């Protein structure tokens, strides 16, 4: 497992950069629309990056694409759930 993770270290490093940038954008803004936008854009790049990684590894198929989209939608739903139930959107 660790061997595979280290083999893909450059990929994971770039993913961490994308996610960290998304977090910093949301954290440093007081504008709720901008924060939501940052979450959506970060999710989009996460899905895109996942697909690209599998494409580079030659193991991409439709099921994998759907999985990344579903995990992305799951994350966005959590944020929607949070903001709609506490009235802070």
């Amino acid at each position: 497992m660790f061997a595979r993770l280290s083999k893909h270290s450059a990929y994971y490093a770039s993913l961490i950069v994308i996610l960290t940038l998304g977090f910093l954008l949301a954290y440093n803004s007081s504008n709720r629309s901008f924060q939501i936008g940052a979450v959506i854009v970060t999710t989009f790049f996460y899905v895109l990056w996942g697909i690209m990684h599998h494409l580079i590894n030659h193991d991409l198929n439709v099921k994998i694409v759907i999985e990344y989209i579903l995990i992305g939608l799951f994350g966005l739903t959590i944020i929607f759930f949070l903001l709609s139930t506490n009235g802070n959107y």
Partner: protein
Amino acid sequence: MKDFFLYLFIPKESNNHRAKILHHTNLFLTIIFLLLTSFFIQKLRVTFPSVLGVKAEISLQELLTLTNKERQNNGIAPLAFNDKLTDAAAKKADDMFEYDYWAHNSPSGKTPWVFIKSSGYKYVYAGENLARGFSTTEDVIKAWMTSSAGHRENMLSSNYQDVGFAVKLGKLNGEETVLIVEELGNLNIPIARNKTAEIATASQTQAAVKNAHSQNREPFINSLSFSSNINMMIILIFIFVLLLDMIIIEKKKVMRFVGHNADHILYLMLIMALVGILKGVII
């Protein structure tokens, strides 16, 4: 029961070596479940605010103390608590609830300065910070201090010498919320002041705190922490299942064509961090 949970959370032959909860159908059903639950909770908040409502632990004393702490940390003289500005802040909060708006200027064009002047405070300089949906004083101050939209400048401006706060519970757009209004002002043209400027007396502030708190009634469940806790719990379950799935499959050396669990874990950690920071709103 035990078999069902193992089937749901542990990858094995019966679930095609992938925890059932991570299958596409189940992920989709989880998303639908979350959407329906959020709709239900939203309705519950509006219909039964005494069951699921807003409970905020924000005190005027703490707002003043933390504001002055930030000012002192930046070498600026502390603000004095002012009854007239507190009255203006309360009027502004009432006006926002009455005319159902969330802005510095009312739909009829009433500016913050109208409330400050009508309270009898003849300012030379004045400013206003607004916040809503926060549950602690620390979060409000942190949001204002990290804002790049002028809130921080207001908090740290040496143009102000007085401050008034209002913390009010009411309904905006049909949703129960806590509004925090900060009115800042100066009666004179600012001159360099030393840091020992007199600040609010304890009795003044405590009376105002009592007044603000008397408008809050405690709901059975606090909606602000409730939705955060539910979301944190759901994300943690998924992270745990993904981690477990990754370890077991790696150990069994099973060949599968699925997404990388490590990617999903990293992404869900970001969502978890966002759940922690997306609290109230400021303008």
